[in-house]
């Protein structure tokens, strides 16, 4: 490690976040991201990493995507954040662009947050207003962000620390893929909404069993609750369609998109609201105010993001990347089948399962040493989040697989034993 980096890490510990800075050093990942371009990250000491973390899809279209950079630059010639009280050109234009590709025909309104958590809070508040009920159901190990209401839907891992967990029974958690538990929780008809990541990311992308999500939607209808789709990580073509919930045949009442929608250049998150849920927007349009939410420059970038991901070429490439990665990973899995035990996949949303407890952590480290950056799942550290971008080139996919094969082999040796398998 260079002197400059040692010095920098000290500063990071002193002024930014001592715990987090140190934790990464302890995990053997001494990454300080400096330059970035496409799907490459460069450590401040110069080493290149292929980014398969993408900050949960934020860099779906790559780092500093040239078209997005251009539209942001050109956008600054005319726009800034805008005034949050007034009808705004870019905010309305993005809302229209979203309505045009929304997963349900009556999803006409968009309310804006500056990040995913805020947009989730808007979604939950909207549901509460529309139903005049308070209870929210989410799944065990759910993750919807760190703001006030979003935090309460999630694992206590993040709320208890701040004494911010739900204490009055308004936030109910049921196990994923358990329809009985879901129905039991909904039966009382006192639930405002079920909020559901279409594929729970921070939980390591466990896949919904066949029929689970559509049945949850039906149960919502049966017991007068709304269905909120959290498409922050699964939307924007990452599952082969604009929104993954569409693939499961769901037309949500409210939908949240974030991260990737801002192209990794201007933070913005959007809550899409159906006509029948958007009562508060008429009753008191000033009900939710956000100075940073829906900043017009962010809207300009988001519109370009939407245009790019809807190109026919992207659809084809997502399919190729998914198929190619899967075929390659299957081979690697066959080679290390006593360690690499499963692949969860929908499009370029993938979770690699490892047999050992916290098995994804040594894999993360060895991939890091071999030039690939992919992160373990916080709420299920057996699973490595494996998230290629939708524009990843064939050459880079091959490069990723080559490095992953080496990295997983080394991690396996470290976890299971040093002897080599004959295979």
């Amino acid at each position, binding site marked *: 490690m260079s002197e400059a980096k040692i010095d920098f890490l000290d500063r990071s510990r002193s002024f930014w976040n001592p715990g987090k800075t140190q934790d990464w050093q302890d995990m053997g990942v001494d990454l300080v991201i400096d330059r970035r371009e496409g799907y490459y990250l460069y450590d401040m000491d110069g080493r290149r990493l292929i980014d398969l973390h993408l900050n949960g899809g934020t860099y779906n279209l790559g780092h500093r995507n040239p078209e997005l950079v251009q539209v942001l630059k050109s956008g600054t010639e005319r726009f800034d954040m805008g005034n949050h009280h007034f009808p705004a*050109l*870019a905010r309305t*234009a993005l809302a229209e662009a979203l309505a045009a590709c929304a997963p349900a025909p009556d999803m006409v309104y968009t309310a804006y947050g500056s990040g995913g958590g805020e947009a989730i809070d808007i979604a939950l508040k909207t549901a509460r207003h529309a139903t005049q009920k308070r209870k929210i159901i989410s799944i065990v190990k759910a993750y919807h962000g760190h703001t006030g209401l979003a935090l309460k839907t999630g694992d206590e891992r993040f709320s208890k620390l701040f004494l911010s967990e739900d204490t009055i029974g308004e936030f109910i958690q049921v196990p994923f893929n358990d329809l009985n538990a879901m129905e039991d929780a909904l039966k009382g008809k006192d639930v405002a909404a079920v909020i559901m990541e279409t594929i729970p990311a921070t939980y390591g992308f466990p896949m919904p069993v066949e029929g689970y999500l559509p049945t949850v939607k039906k149960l919502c209808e049966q017991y007068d609750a709304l269905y909120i789709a959290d498409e922050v990580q699964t939307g924007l073509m990452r599952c082969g369609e604009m929104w993954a919930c569409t693939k*499961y045949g769901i037309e949500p009442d409210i939908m949240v998109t974030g991260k990737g929608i801002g192209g990794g250049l201007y933070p913005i998150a959007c809550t899409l609201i159906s006509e029948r849920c958007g009562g508060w927007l008429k009753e008191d349009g000033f009900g939710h105010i956000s100075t940073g939410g829906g900043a017009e420059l962010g809207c300009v970038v988001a*519109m370009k993001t939407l245009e790019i991901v809807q190109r026919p070429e992207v659809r084809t490439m997502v399919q190729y990347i*998914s198929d190619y990665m899967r075929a390659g990973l299957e081979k690697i899995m066959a080679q290390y089948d006593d360690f690499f035990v499963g692949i*969860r996949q*929908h*499009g370029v949303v993938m979770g690699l399962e490892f047999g050992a407890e916290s098995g994804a952590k040594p894999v993360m480290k060895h991939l890091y040493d071999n030039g690939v950056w992919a992160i373990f799942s916080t709420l299920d550290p057996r699973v490595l989040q494996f998230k290629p971008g939708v524009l990843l080139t064939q050459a880079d996919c091959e490069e990723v697989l080559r490095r992953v094969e080496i990295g997983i082999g080394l991690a396996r040796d470290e976890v299971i034993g040093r002897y080599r398998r*004959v295979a």
Partner: protein
Amino acid sequence: MEPQVRTLVEIEGTQAALTGRADMVLERARWAAEVFQRYDLESTMAVVDAVATSAHEHAARYAEWAVKETGFGVAAHKKIKNELTAHPLVDFYRDQDFVNIRIDESLKIVETPRPAGVIFCLTPSTNPIATINYKIIISLMTRNAVVIGPHPAARECCIDAANMLAQAAVDAGAPDGVIQIIEDPSIPLIEEFMKSPKTAVILATGGTPMVRSAYSSSNPAIGVGPGNAPVFVDSSADINKAANRIVESKSFDNSVLCTNESVLITLPEADKQLRQSLKRYGAYFCNDDDTSRLRQYLFHGAGFNIETIGRDATWIAKECGIRVPEKTAILVAPIDQIGIEEPLSREKLCPVLAYHVAKNRDQAIMQARAVLRLTGAGHSAAVHTMDETVAMAFARTLEVYRIVVNAPCSQGAAGFGTALAPTFTIGTGFFGRSSIGENVGPEHLVHWTKLAYNEDTSEKFGDYFGIGNNFLGPLPPAPEDGVPGAGHYQLAPPTVSMSTDPLSSITRTELRQMIAEELRGVLRG
């Protein structure tokens, strides 16, 4: 109220937008090419045949569309060309195998075909659909992906045709994106495609600036120069047949093929009979006044009047005020000189034929060489003669790479009615500042990796017949876990096109697994 998608901040035309657009199309093509290279001969030809069938079935429709959109040529003739570039083209190459390995035991060499990858094709407005058919089919035969950059003047028919062929390809099992077309072909965008490192080779047919630009792109290019074919009618020729063929060729699709005869050169002893014969087959001989009107009209100002490209003879005659019989097929303009001072000795992509009488054969050759010095170097020529020494003298001397003998040049040089390879890209070779001097075909879009053994007889050549090819086929679709009806993931076994050895790969895998199990047991103690 319906939502509208608007662009508040327009970046079209910026470098970022151009590069982004080209990159995306080409990367999709690269993926398609990567997967296509896993296909065996049978599945490759299934795709090729499906595309040819689709092209054949719609030959007439696109012929009419092309004429309507561009104003060039004759629909009936374009239909023939569109058909020729479908099934007959495929059949011409059918017994050539660009997919399987070649094994030469005596030389101890094994050759493995390695497709170029992504072929970027410029297609002209004069022969839009035939060129598209042709370039797509030779690309597919060699398991390449293809991106078409159509001439803007023929944009609409090209987009429709290419998309139709793309659908036919995918329906026949081709990888998605194997055929693409640029729907908004501006010059800066085309240049972006040409210079992209994702383009493997450019197949350039079109005007000289585009072809030169292809060569300047830094990518490998197969470009062709313009034509200006001299045709010599020798005194030994069957004059009547020669005249018939020349009129037929010159009026074919109103001379939009760059292989059309441009300047007829003959000898005094054949002159009179040739004139009569040409007239009999529908040629109108211009008088001095007509010729000067024609000269003025075809070569006004800076250069060739592109308005006249592919127009028929009567239309052109009318435009420059020459009264001709209604059934006139071609206009013949006698010229005394050849060279810089006589514009009519240049290329004319319309049914106007310059006519020059040389003193003798030697002079005829010198005049033919002079025609090609103007334009058309490396392209085509025709000779009508019964004397092989005459034909040979032209072959030795003229700076062209194909001379058709006793055949219509338009069709013959492009490989229709001769044994030359049927093509819509005429390699103009080094004479014509091009990399290839042959009629371009699929063999130019694939290179071969050669395994070359030590010649020494003590080094034994391997059993490559036993190994055969290892075609992986299409990628199995990745699972969409939990999506209703998505089913389970399965890796397909590769197809081996040649016989395999008795100890199959499955047995080997089982053996390896047994050994691995044993080892594991020992090590765990």
